[in-house]
């Protein structure tokens, strides 16, 4: 879940663009009203939607809800669940009074609530929108036991490398498009010029899983990625060996990592961002779009001093990994299905896209809608990656393996950072932990 402050993300980026207010919303609503046939089909219908967003994110989402209200005549109330969505929804489900629509921060919750029978299958209209705007992978991700329950409505882009422009200028380094160039040219040039290339937040285990996942998705391909996500191939597979060896090209070189492995292992997220942009001790940090939220605190400006390059391709294609929030229906009502249909549609996505701090996983939402260049660039990578976009693997695994401090994948990759030469040993530990977590 820590991976999903996502959204807090690009706030800093485009705080300036906050002025759009509800004007944009009503405009979008009225322009589409004729399509709905003139009459407002949901007049008087009340819908409650719960999500974890607060502050600016909430305000931005409420603009989307306003546009929906203007279009359909329904009245939508928003309830904030706070950081722990499960803790908020659990009692309401028990009490038989869930919100009509909930937006869950993890796909794992979809599975869990579906098992409890707390979710309603999506209507055929919503599914039509999903088929039209999303690749089949996302449909499957929101499904449980053959039924479609959820749709990813907000994405975090995890295949990025942030760099400090001044460090690149001083060293004469260039952003890389392939992993080999990144290691042997970009990082080497930076290192030669006396700037440590990478700052790693290795004390936060998920930063390492994100790094591994990007390398793996690119080197082993989406099919293997899916299999490994479900533990259908073991972690001792040769494809994992390759990915870990590639990873060791960076993490195994002491002078490439600020403070060496021992220093990195004591660094929490977002301290590594500060080390790059605040203390100017390193040049690059490999993490998701939500780094943008920490950059201004270090006195750098996103887009000027703080720039991004897409994660370079390790194999044949560059990886695109998303995290994000999944919307589900919890009460069988016409309004709830209509809201989801709207959120999954191109129209709803574009209203939302005009707000800062939002990235849509919807492939039909044109990048031109985003208020800043950075988000446009991110959206472009999602669209061009098409079918091979994947969801964060560790978030799909049981949390004992993919989401616990000091356990499972987090721990094993941290141990790998300590002894990057022992690829075999790391694989065996990963496999043993995965086997334990997946059997339950």
């Amino acid at each position, binding site marked *: 879940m820590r991976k999903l402050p996502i959204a807090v993300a690009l706030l800093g980026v485009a705080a300036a663009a906050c002025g759009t207010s509800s004007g944009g919303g009503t405009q979008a609503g009225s322009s589409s009203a004729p399509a709905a046939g003139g009459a407002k089909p949901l007049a008087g219908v009340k819908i409650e939607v719960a999500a974890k967003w607060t502050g600016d994110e909430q305000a931005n989402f409420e603009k989307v809800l306003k546009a929906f209200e203007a279009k359909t005549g329904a009245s939508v109330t928003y309830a904030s669940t706070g950081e722990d969505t499960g803790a908020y929804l659990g009692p309401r489900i028990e009490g038989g009074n869930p919100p009509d629509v909930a937006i869950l921060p993890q796909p794992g919750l979809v599975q869990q609530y579906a098992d409890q029978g707390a979710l309603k299958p999506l209507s055929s209209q919503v599914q039509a929108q999903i088929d039209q705007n999303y690749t089949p992978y996302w449909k499957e991700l929101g499904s449980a036991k053959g039924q479609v329950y959820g749709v990813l409505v907000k994405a975090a882009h995890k295949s990025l490398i942030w760099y400090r422009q001044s460090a690149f200028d001083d060293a004469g380094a260039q952003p890389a498009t392939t992993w080999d160039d990144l290691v042997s040219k970009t990082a080497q040039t930076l290192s030669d010029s006396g700037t440590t290339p990478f700052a790693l937040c290795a*004390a936060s285990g998920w930063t390492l899983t994100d790094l591994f996942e990007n390398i793996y998705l690119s080197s082993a391909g989406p099919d293997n990625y899916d299999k490994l996500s479900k533990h259908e191939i073991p972690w001792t597979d040769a494809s994992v060996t390759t990915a870990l060896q590639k990873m060791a090209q960076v993490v195994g070189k002491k002078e490439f990592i600020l403070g060496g492995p021992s220093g990195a292992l004591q660094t929490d997220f977002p301290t590594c961002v500060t080390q790059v942009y605040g203390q100017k001790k390193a040049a690059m940090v490999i993490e998701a779009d939500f780094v943008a939220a920490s950059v201004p605190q270090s006195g750098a400006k996103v887009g000027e001093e703080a720039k991004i390059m897409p994660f370079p391709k390790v194999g044949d294609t560059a990886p695109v990994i998303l995290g994000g929030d999944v919307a589900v229906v919890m009460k069988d009502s016409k309004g709830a299905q209509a809201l989801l249909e709207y959120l999954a549609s191109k129209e709803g996505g574009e209203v939302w896209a005009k707000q800062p701090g939002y990235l849509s996983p919807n492939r039909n939402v044109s990048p031109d809608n985003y208020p800043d260049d950075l988000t446009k660039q991110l959206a472009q990578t999602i669209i061009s990656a098409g079918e091979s976009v994947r969801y964060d693997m560790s978030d799909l695994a049981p949390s004992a393996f993919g989401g616990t401090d000091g356990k499972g994948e987090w721990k094993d990759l941290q141990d790998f950072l300590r002894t990057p030469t022992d690829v075999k040993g790391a694989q065996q530990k990963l496999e043993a932990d995965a086997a334990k977590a997946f059997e339950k």
Partner: protein
Amino acid sequence: MTERLDGPQAPGGGDAAGEPPGPRETPPAGVTAPVAAAASATAAVPAEGAAPPRLGPSPRLAVMFLLPAVLLLAAWMIYPLVYSLVRSLFDASGSRFVGLGNYGSIFTDSSTLTTIRNNVIWVVVAPVVVTALGLIFAVLTERIRWATAFKLVLFMPMAVSLLAAGVIFRLVYEQDPDKGVANAIITTVHDTFSSSTGYPGARPRENDQAPATVQGGAVVAKQQAQPGRPVLIPLVGLSQDVVKDAAPAKAAPADGIGGTVWLDVVRGGGGTLNQVDPQEKGLAGITVEAVSGSTVKATTETADDGTFRFSGLPAGSYVIRLPQSNFTAPFNGVTWLGPALITPAIIGAYIWVWAGFAMVLIAAGLSAIPRDALEAARIDGATEWQVFRRITVPLLAPVLLVVFVTMVINVLKVFDLVFIIAPGSVQPQANVIALEMWRVSFGGGGNQGLGSALSIFLLLLVVPFMIFNIRRFRRDES
């Protein structure tokens, strides 16, 4: 729970003969409640005789008075305890009975064994140190003016929540001397005696074309030095800021044995690799050795422009070496938050919090010691040390024991400091039973069976000390 609710009530409504079972039910589980045990004993004893006339209130009234306490105890202590016990016999999902399997995995899983080992270290070290420090502080503060102010300062950490104390010490132990106080002190002391010299981080390029390589920490030129063939040793890995005031590098004159050591990097890129370019800076003050065989034949230093020259060296070919001392990295302090030192570091934080508490308790005991015993000893010619060892400590023993046992119990369930101070990557090395219990059950592990087993295990560890404490209280009372 509801059964217990009904239990005492039913006899309460019936005749007097049915009463004893009600209150008597509590003692077996009431380990943690001496009050309840004592109360139920007094209630049960008169009922035992039945025949002699009753003293005190009627059983019905007694039950009424007992009921609130019994209910609360049952709800907050007994039910959770029993439920944990039962839960610990089931697997993660709670549906399959696994017997003692969870207890087995406590003692076979290596990560859980680490937590037990850490708990042992904690129990052995922390209570002893806290009690000893408390004693020392208490005895010393008795002698000074402003004792109250001193005690106040030492007691202050108790006013800080453990969570906040953890956050503070996380910063104290930070590796970077600019942030972590502990390392700031250590590096300052270290640097007053030996400061780092030369150019830490400078190194030759790592490829086959590079004219120099690293051998055992020293930089060695691949080309042998001969008169008339100057040796080029280009180095990289230094920030331009380090050499911004340095003179531009120059090629060494062709006569004699010599060469140039310089920073082969141009700001913004460019320049010819392994060639002295005009914008590139010389590295001054580097020790250069001329080695023949395995002996150092001559030593010199580079000039401002990075050139060096061996004068008076017999002609021949030499290996040119820049010894490691040129490149020693600055001392960066101690890795407090690394796997090796993490547990001692956290124990340090714990002592900081609790030493004041121990001091206050012991000081209270100290003021109750009869002065005449001390004075008698002094008049008999005992030294202060003898008085302390033979009189003060024995007389204080009961208080010391209380402090010690309280600390042992406290240490067994330590959680927050470990959770906050240890970075995620060393959590496995710093882990303790209470933290593992939480992690396994709620913090992502999702196995409340194993978690319950751990909690019961922890309870079993604490219980002997509890019983010991209760017995002592009883003895003191009688």
